[in-house]
């Protein structure tokens, strides 16, 4: 009951703030968040620099600095698939001065790990989802299949023979691959590599046949004809590969595999600050600059506010818990 009212309240605040933002944009003023920020804000990116989290997070940090009038400093803290940096973010003071970038891996932490140093559903207050980008199913051209249906037929004919590469047990790409196996009702081998680079090398060399990977990693190889794209993992076709069907329309109803990016604050961060940040971020995401910038990496702006983002995280976590159970993946003994 109590949570219901607080959620309603939050929605109300969001709406009010939205109206305020629309009225006095670009200087959005909201009473209680008046003096925030009065010092630099830290944005933890729990991954090493140079990856997709950076491509999404850094432009947002730069624009946010302009909007807030205080520097938003990016702090890359990689390690343990994002857990180390996220832990630092969870344990920071809930005052709005430490934010944490997150992505698809976040909703896999709870289903896969027993002793997490934080609770993905409780330790954070979601601020906003920024964007999402589909993964893509690619095959080596030596494999004589031209569509998802043909790939499934091939796998049914020779169960357990096809070799899919992936980027390490429990990674979001690996779980997307397991989900494909379950939903297409086929059997194939999944060979793991430490990261996307080595997996892609193995596939390009023709030592394996298929890979469900991020669109941006596969794009140059699709364009040069070294890999064949069978389907993209989003609900709709990707703007960068308009001729390639989604995996769903190509024969696996209900299947989706994509990455997303969002920003979290420690649980207990005052609502006015959360609202203010979301409003600023929403305005930033609406600019052509950011839209075009994201699209270069095959990422589309896909904003969700605090409440909807929270629901999204809960729903995704529940989904993956089922998949993890069904695929029987256990990272702890």
């Amino acid at each position: 009951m109590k949570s219901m009212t607080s959620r309603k309240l939050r929605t109300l605040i969001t709406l009010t703030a939205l109206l305020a933002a629309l009225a006095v944009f670009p200087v959005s003023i909201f009473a209680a968040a008046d003096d925030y920020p009065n010092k630099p804000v830290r944005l933890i990116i729990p991954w090493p620099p140079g990856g997709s989290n950076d491509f999404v997070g850094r432009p947002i940090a730069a624009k946010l600095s302009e909007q807030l009038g205080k520097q938003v400093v990016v702090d890359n803290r990689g390690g343990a698939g994002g857990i180390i940096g996220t832990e630092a973010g969870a344990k920071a003071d809930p005052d709005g001065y430490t934010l944490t970038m997150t992505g698809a891996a976040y909703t896999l932490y709870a289903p896969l790990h027993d002793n997490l140093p934080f609770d993905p559903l409780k330790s954070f207050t979601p601020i906003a989802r920024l964007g999402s980008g589909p993964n893509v199913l690619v095959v080596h051209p030596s494999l004589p299949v031209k569509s998802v249906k043909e790939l499934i037929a091939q796998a049914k004919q020779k169960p357990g023979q096809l070799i899919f590469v992936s980027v390490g047990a429990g990674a979001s790409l690996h779980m997307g691959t397991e989900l494909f196996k379950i939903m297409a009702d086929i059997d194939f081998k999944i060979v793991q590599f430490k990261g996307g680079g080595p997996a892609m090398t193995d596939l390009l060399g023709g030592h394996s046949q298929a890979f469900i990977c991020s669109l941006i990693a596969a794009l140059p190889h699709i364009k040069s004809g070294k890999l064949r794209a069978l389907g993209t993992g989003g609900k709709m076709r990707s703007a960068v590969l308009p001729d390639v069907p989604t995996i769903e329309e190509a024969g696996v109803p209900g299947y989706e595999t994509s990455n997303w990016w969002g920003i979290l604050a420690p649980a207990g961060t005052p609502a006015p600050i959360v609202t203010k940040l979301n409003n600023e971020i929403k305005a930033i995401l609406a600019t052509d600059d950011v839209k075009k910038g994201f699209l270069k990496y095959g990422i589309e702006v896909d904003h969700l506010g605090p409440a909807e983002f929270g629901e999204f995280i809960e729903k995704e976590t529940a989904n993956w818990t089922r998949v993890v159970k069904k695929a029987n993946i256990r990272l702890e003994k």
Partner: protein
Amino acid sequence: MELFNNLIFGFSVAFSLQNLLYCFIGVLVGTLIGVLPGIGPMATIAMLLPITYNIPPVAALIMLAGIYYGAQYGGSTTSILVNLPGETASVITCIDGYQMARQGRAGPALAIAAIGSFFAGTVCTMIIAMFGPPLAEMALKFGSPEYFSLMVMALVTAAVLAHGDMLKSLAMVVLGLLLGIVGSDVDSGIKRFCFNFFELTDGIGFVIIAIGVFAVGEIISNLSDPEERQVFTSKVGSLYPTLQDMKQSIAPIIRGTAIGAFFGTLPGTGPAISSFSSYMVEKKAARDPSRFGRGAIEGVAGPESANNAAAQCAFIPTLTLGIPGSGTMALMLGALMIHGITPGPMVMVQQPDLFWGLIASMWIGNLMLVVLNLPMVGVWVSVLKLPYRMLFPAIMVFSAIGIYSTNNVSFDVYLAAIFGVLGIAWRVLGCSPIPMLLGFVLGPIMEENLRRALQVSEGDPSVFLTRPISLAFIIATVLILVVMVMPAVRKRRDDIVG
């Protein structure tokens, strides 16, 4: 002819004032972080990556590349002077480089490292320009079975690394293999020997072990024995190599360059394995292997050429296929992607200024480095005259900063301290840490590739013998074993006859 035109075009790009400046900044920063123990090119490039948002992509890549290969030049400096590897690939240089310094020959050691690196850099720039794309295609022929057989060959050859007690060396190799197991198992995701520390799930960093064992261990054991230190600082001899030194170094430099170029082109191997391999080859090729470990100049010339060659050739798969061979190369690709350039086979065609400009800048950068480093030899040698009460705390501080900056996690610094204590224990027990480091580097690559190969072949080990490249490595391994065992057998027979 087309190559000639391309190179001229490349030089015209690289010779712009702006690009020359960024190249110089890159190699200067590279040399500096190479000298500083712990701070490696990966951490530096990661830190500088955001700055490159505001620089044109060609200039950004030229600078970052300069940092990467510049670090290979600087890395040998502290290895030679104070027995601390400034860079992971310079670990092996400690063995003979430091011994040369103790004999008052720090100058020649430093000079030959720079000369060898320059030769390797020049040759590899030519290799990238002439054979880049076909070499990258060849590297793709290496699947899991090939990598496994290659690593077996490397590990078997490692037996020559052992000086002194064979059993102790073997024990250290096994210890290295075990340390390499720590972390998430890539296939099942199960955490091995992590003791609930999430900081250990990515495994122990090479830098942490190397700095712990060498920097911390060396300093503590030196403090316990101050007399020994004073002896060799007083006799710093000639700064430059003699004609005899140069003659002895020519063959190792050429062999080192070839070895480095080979490993550099293969994604996932890198400069450390190259310098290890080069050292093993030099020790095997030497007429008197017993000189190794006692200040043989070949033991500096070979590995230092090899690691620079590998650093340079690592750009082959990165630039021509868009495949990062290592974490540092992934960052380089990240730098391109920041500017919206999708790395891949198309870069050469769509961005010729970037491809050929970078190649030309590499040669210019190598020239800058040798000009920068040779006159610096005298300055570096004078570091040896610094009192230890200043030198040691400085090294400790820089080491700690370097380790911390890799992941921004203080856990790593504590871990290095633990390895420092272990380092002293091994020193007291007379166990060389080099075989341990080799096991640590090769172990995980071997394990991963063995399991992948067997997973694909459904447990059939004949896959290592039916694939031609893999078979070639296995045959070579057997030959190496025979050659190594033969002298022992012949000696015993002589003993019986005699």
